[in-house]
């Protein structure tokens, strides 16, 4: 990147740029560290919730299957129409380093019993409770998973930026700065030498011809 004119104003500009790049690098580095720490805690939590959801779901599927075996699929499906329970989600937001992360709260409205116990199996109630349980766990899992994905993406972007600054932008600036500095010094020496030559020539002509032609 030596396409700048090696003059003093550019030199000052480059120096400022380098300072700015270093500051940016430092800030991004901090951001990266925070993101990685956040990610690590989130991953552990998510793995935990994942296994909990899977266990809850396995139970729920099992009791549903039993209910279907006792009553038949059609009847269970009909009953599901009678359930007027509503699972409402309240979505909030939190921010980590400018990344918007969801916070999920699940609320259930509608009280049981939803259908007559006559002619229905206990297994249906069981399945209902199990799915309800799985559902509330799932809200949290969704929150964690989505947060994880977004944070990880942001972390990746940040790492790329940090690396770009560290490996390309800053060394490049440094090199250009050095080159400009060298050229400036060279010009200074040249100027100095020129002055010296002029002076010595002046003196020589003064000593020899006493005001003769310069």
């Amino acid at each position, binding site marked *: 990147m030596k396409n700048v004119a090696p003059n003093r104003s550019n030199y000052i500009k480059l120096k400022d740029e380098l300072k700015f790049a270093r500051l940016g690098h430092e800030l991004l580095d901090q951001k990266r560290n925070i993101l990685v720490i956040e990610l690590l805690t989130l991953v552990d939590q998510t793995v935990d919730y994942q296994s909990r959801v899977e266990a809850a779901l396995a139970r729920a599927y099992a009791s549903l299957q039993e209910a279907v075996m006792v009553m038949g699929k059609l009847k269970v499906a009909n009953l599901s129409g009678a359930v007027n329970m509503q699972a409402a989600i309240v979505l909030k937001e939190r921010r980590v380093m400018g990344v918007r992360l969801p916070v999920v709260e699940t609320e259930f409205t509608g009280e049981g019993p939803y259908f007559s116990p006559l002619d229905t199996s206990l297994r249906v109630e069981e399945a209902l409770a199990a799915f309800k349980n799985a559902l509330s766990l799932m809200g949290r899992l969704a929150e964690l*998973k989505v947060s994880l994905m977004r944070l990880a993406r942001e972390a990746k972007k940040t790492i790329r930026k940090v690396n770009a600054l560290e490996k390309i932008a800053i060394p490049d600036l440094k090199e250009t700065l050095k080159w400009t500095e060298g050229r400036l010094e060279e010009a200074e020496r040249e100027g100095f030498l020129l002055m010296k030559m002029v002076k010595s020539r002046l003196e020589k002509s003064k000593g020899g011809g006493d005001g003769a032609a310069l």
Partner: protein
Amino acid sequence: MKYFVLGDEDAVLGFELAGVSGARAATAEEAEEAFRKALLEGDTGILIITEEVADLIRHVVDRHLFSENFPLIVEIPGSRRTGQPGRDIRALVNEAIGIKL
């Protein structure tokens, strides 16, 4: 905001029992259409999708997972899964992002 479930018959039946509306999907076209519909319905806060169905329309799901805000997507094992664990979350992050945790 509400839940919406997209999956095989048993999964949808189960969640309907808990008051969640859902759509059944067996083919990629069905899944994609149901997925689009669920997104268009502004009231959907969390979309529950079974892994089998998600695999059918993996590109659509993954794109949504990273970009837009709502709905949030959560993948669950389907009712017919035979015990092997789902995609490990760490592996998922590694695969999608390319950083190791």
